[in-house]
């Protein structure tokens, strides 16, 4: 099944936000802070305002009442004893700048080149303050505070528990205790962010094109900020060049300022981020430090886990606790762990804001549990795959309530799963037994450093609240489908079309899909938490089912046959056994919308229906990744020899698209594990803010991924689907660490951190000597 969007993308005809061109359009450049932490004493834009070609320059002072901190995007879950200090981002820095790249002034000019020229004319006076950079030092008494109205840099503190860890510890044969560091990087979508806005004075209507993963909330929020009716604002997220999480924020300063300027100036205005700005101003995910211990019985049965961790939230925390809560919840993985005590402290630092990036903190949790299991296996003399097997949840334990609150504020409950066969499938695919027994000893004897790893994970996906969809059969017989979620490459157009086509008995090519345009559909939340196919897909399904009922109702009268005897197939409805007869869907659509006569009471005109789907809770995908690596101990270069993925995301609607999501996720994970690191110095300056210095994996770094699908349908939605968008990236760090450590077993190196790099790995080997 080909993707319907591809022809446009391949020929250069797809519209991305920076492609929007309107008559009289103005262009924006932002002056951004050079300091990580400083008091702003004055911002003088008068010279910039006088430069030819400059139309306006705005500072915080010029925004008046429009200046206000952004909304809290995700309120924290109701955890007893929770401390949470919300400090959300501001449109332009006022008294203080809190990270390098924070916007200080906005220049609007006739061209981007002129706008950038004018940035040099703005005079900023600032008193630098010591920067808060190190996570642990941030909480030390006497440390400068990122937000001075708070007593310290503590952003949040939360403890969640299940069972009785103290008892588990007392009963344990061994306690495995380690400190782990897990850092993440930039989302690095190849398309940077962009916003364009046009205020149509006659229609009194604002159109905003935005590289957002959540056009509907942006529309609603903008209407409120600008004092417009929601129906006066149209937000379009056309083609978006990769999202991965950071393209959903409420709001980025630029999203608030560009539409405002377009209204004030009465001319279309556009801003497009450049790559350097993206490194400073687009949200990132970053480090956590975990002090974790595992209480384990002699046979490898896990009795309990205790984990205390620090989480870097950056300069503001608009996303609440989403990322650390994901880490906390995901740590338990596919295992039956009777007791768990998890405490985290989120910390403000003078760095770019942290929000979810593909995986959204789940990696950190998976890394901790998987590494602890590896160390336990070694200490107890149990095989690494075997210790996992012994602790997996059994099929009869579903639905399984994990007792720990998830990002949707409900306890993370696993809906369905069958974990052991997934592990077996991965071991078989990578030929684990033979590798460990024969191949590895043989290669080691020849002086080669080869290693194998196998790692399990679960992923809470497809959470609420809801999505909606409208399905319309047009008189041409073509079907229109509109839904609120946007798409950033996941193939939603195609997947949704397939779902609707199946219900209505039409070819998927006949289903015309519109997503991400609030004029077409304006109820819904957005594309996040691997929920597109699950939640919006289910809404598409429900709308199609409702239209199908209308079709059957009308056709049964027209064809004088019972609805139960009718068949929808090939774009027609016919009586069973008479495939040549019947009526085309288009003809029915015409009859359903008559120009004369009456529409029957109790019915609606047309073959159209809108439906919504809101799952009670998320569905839980799971998987096992395995890989074989060879490490050159001289150069610390790692070569991935094989990479195997077994994953279960419930019912697979389009295997090609699901595999593509996994390939991309694994590549992202490999980048995170070995290539990508945001390097900040002690002044809070990001030292590698370009693709020259921040390395994304290239085609020669990423292996072919061998994928096996397993399908344990979710009982929570009619499609049976679970999310897949993030899965590939989640276990990769843990897997990388395990396999590399195995390859270097003779050096005694222990890997307790990600990202690695050849340099870092080399250092670790030196230390282990």
């Amino acid at each position, binding site marked *: 099944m*080909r*993707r319907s*969007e*591809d*022809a*446009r*993308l*391949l*020929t*250069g*005809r*797809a*519209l*991305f936000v*920076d*492609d929007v*061109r309107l008559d009289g359009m103005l262009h924006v450049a932002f002056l951004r802070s050079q300091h990580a932490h400083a008091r702003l004493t004055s911002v003088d834009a008068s010279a910039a305002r006088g430069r030819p070609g400059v139309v306006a320059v705005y500072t915080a002072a010029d925004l008046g009442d429009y200046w206000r901190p952004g909304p809290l995007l995700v309120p924290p879950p109701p955890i007893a004893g929770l401390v949470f200090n919300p400090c959300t981002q501001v449109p332009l820095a006022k008294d203080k700048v809190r990270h390098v790249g924070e916007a200080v002034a906005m220049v609007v000019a006739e061209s*981007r*080149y002129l706008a950038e020229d004018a940035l040099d004319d703005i005079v900023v006076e600032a008193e630098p303050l010591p920067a808060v950079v190190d996570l642990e030092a941030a909480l030390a008494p006497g440390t400068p505070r990122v937000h001075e109205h708070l007593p310290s840099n503590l952003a949040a503190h939360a403890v969640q528990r299940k069972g009785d860890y103290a008892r588990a510890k007392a009963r344990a044969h061994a306690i495995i205790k380690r400190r782990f560091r897990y850092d993440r990087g930039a*989302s*690095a*979508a*190849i*398309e*940077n962010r962009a916003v364009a806005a046009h205020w149509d004075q006659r229609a009194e209507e604002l159109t905003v094109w935005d590289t957002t993963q959540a056009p509907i909330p942006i529309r609603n929020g903008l209407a409120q900020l600008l004092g417009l009716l929601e129906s006066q604002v149209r937000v379009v997220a056309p*083609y*978006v*060049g*990769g999202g991965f999480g950071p393209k959903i924020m409420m709001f980025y300063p630029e999203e608030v300022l560009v539409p405002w300027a377009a209204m004030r100036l009465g001319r279309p205005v556009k801003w497009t981020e*450049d*790559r350097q700005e993206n490194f400073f101003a687009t949200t990132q995910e970053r480090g956590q430090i975990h002090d974790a211990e595992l209480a384990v019985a002699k046979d490898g049965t896990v009795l309990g886990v205790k984990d205390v961790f620090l989480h870097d939230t950056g300069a503001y925390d608009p996303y609440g606790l989403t990322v650390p809560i994901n880490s906390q919840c995901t740590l338990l993985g596919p295992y039956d762990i009777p007791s768990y005590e998890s405490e985290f402290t989120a910390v403000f630092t003078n760095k770019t804001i942290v929000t979810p990036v593909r995986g959204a903190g789940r990696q950190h949790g998976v890394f901790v549990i998987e590494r602890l299991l590896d160390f336990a296996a070694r200490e107890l003399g149990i095989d690494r795959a075997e210790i996992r097997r012994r602790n997996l949840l059994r099929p009869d334990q579903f639905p399984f309530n994990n007792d720990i609150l998830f990002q949707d504020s409900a306890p993370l409950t696993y809906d369905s799963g069958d974990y052991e066969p997934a592990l077996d499938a991965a071991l078989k695919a990578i030929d684990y037994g033979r590798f460990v027994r024969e191949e590895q000893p043989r290669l080691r004897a020849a002086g080669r450093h080869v290693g194998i790893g196998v790692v399990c994970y679960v992923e809470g996906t497809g959470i609420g609240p809801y999505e909606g969809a409208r399905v319309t059969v047009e008189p041409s017989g073509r079907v229109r489908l509109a839904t609120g979620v946007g798409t*950033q*490459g*996941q*193939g939603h157009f195609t997947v949704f079309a397939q779902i609707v086509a199946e219900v209505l008995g039409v070819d998927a090519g006949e289903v015309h899909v519109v997503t991400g345009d609030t004029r077409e559909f304006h109820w819904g939340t957005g594309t996040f938490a691997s929920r597109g196919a699950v939640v919006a897909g289910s809404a598409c399904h429900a709308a199609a089912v409702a239209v199908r009922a209308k079709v059957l109702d009308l056709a049964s009268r027209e064809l004088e046959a019972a609805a139960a005897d009718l068949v929808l197939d090939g774009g027609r409805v016919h009586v069973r056994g008479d495939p040549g007869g019947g009526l085309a869907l288009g003809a029915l659509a015409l009859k359903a919308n008559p120009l004369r006569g009456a529409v029957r009471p109790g019915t609606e005109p047309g073959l159209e229906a809108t439906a919504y789907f809101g799952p009670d809770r998320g569905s839980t995908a799971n998987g096992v990744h395995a890989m074989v690596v060879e490490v050159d101990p001289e150069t610390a270069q790692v070569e991935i020899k094989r990479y195997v993925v077994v994953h279960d995301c419930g019912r697979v609607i389009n295997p*090609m*698209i699901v*595999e*593509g*999501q*996994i*390939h*991309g*996720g*694994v*590549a*992202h994970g490999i980048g995170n594990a070995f290539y990508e690191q945001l390097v900040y110095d002690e002044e809070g300056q990001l030292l590698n803010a*370009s*693709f*020259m210095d921040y390395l*994304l994996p*290239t*085609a*020669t770094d*990423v292996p*072919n*991924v*061998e*994928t096996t699908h397993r399908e344990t349908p979710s009982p929570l939605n009619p499609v049976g689907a679970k999310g897949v968008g993030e899965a*590939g990236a989640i276990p990769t760090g843990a897997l990388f660490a395990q396999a590399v450590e195995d390859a270097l077993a003779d050096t005694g190196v222990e890997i307790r951190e990600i990202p690695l790099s050849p340099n870092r790995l080399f250092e670790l080997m030196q230390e282990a000597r």
Partner: protein
Amino acid sequence: MDPHANVEVTVNGVRHRRAVEPRLLLSDFLRHELGLTGTHVGCEHGVCGACTVLLDGDAVRSCLMFAVQADGHDVTTVEGLSDGSGETLHPLQAAFREAHGLQCGFCTPGVLMTLVPFLREHPDPDERQIREALSGNLCRCTGYQNIVAAVRLACGAPSSPRA
């Protein structure tokens, strides 16, 4: 003194004459002066390859060139690969669609324009050669696997390298 310079350049077979600022990047010229927005910009420092176009048949990064440097030359952008109707695709484009060689599609025009001259010189590349040819184009979505598969498909090989 007029800060503008004249450029005369043939793009996708059509001759254009414009007076532009000497500092105008070729990528901006194509996108914003000529409205050929199929050429994308991902970094403007020559690493991501999204802006790749053909200059006299060779792949170049249009973000690393000024428009005036293209004066008198022949440029092909992704819009010039097929007939523009979207109905008929260049064989390489068709292979990308068949093998799911694109997701968000933002890197894709640059990838295609890198591959066209590569395949002219290597009509039957092996996987290593393909990956090396692609190593100057960043893609965050696909993990490259299906891009490689698409290239093999375009060369008449079975589309799946392994797996």
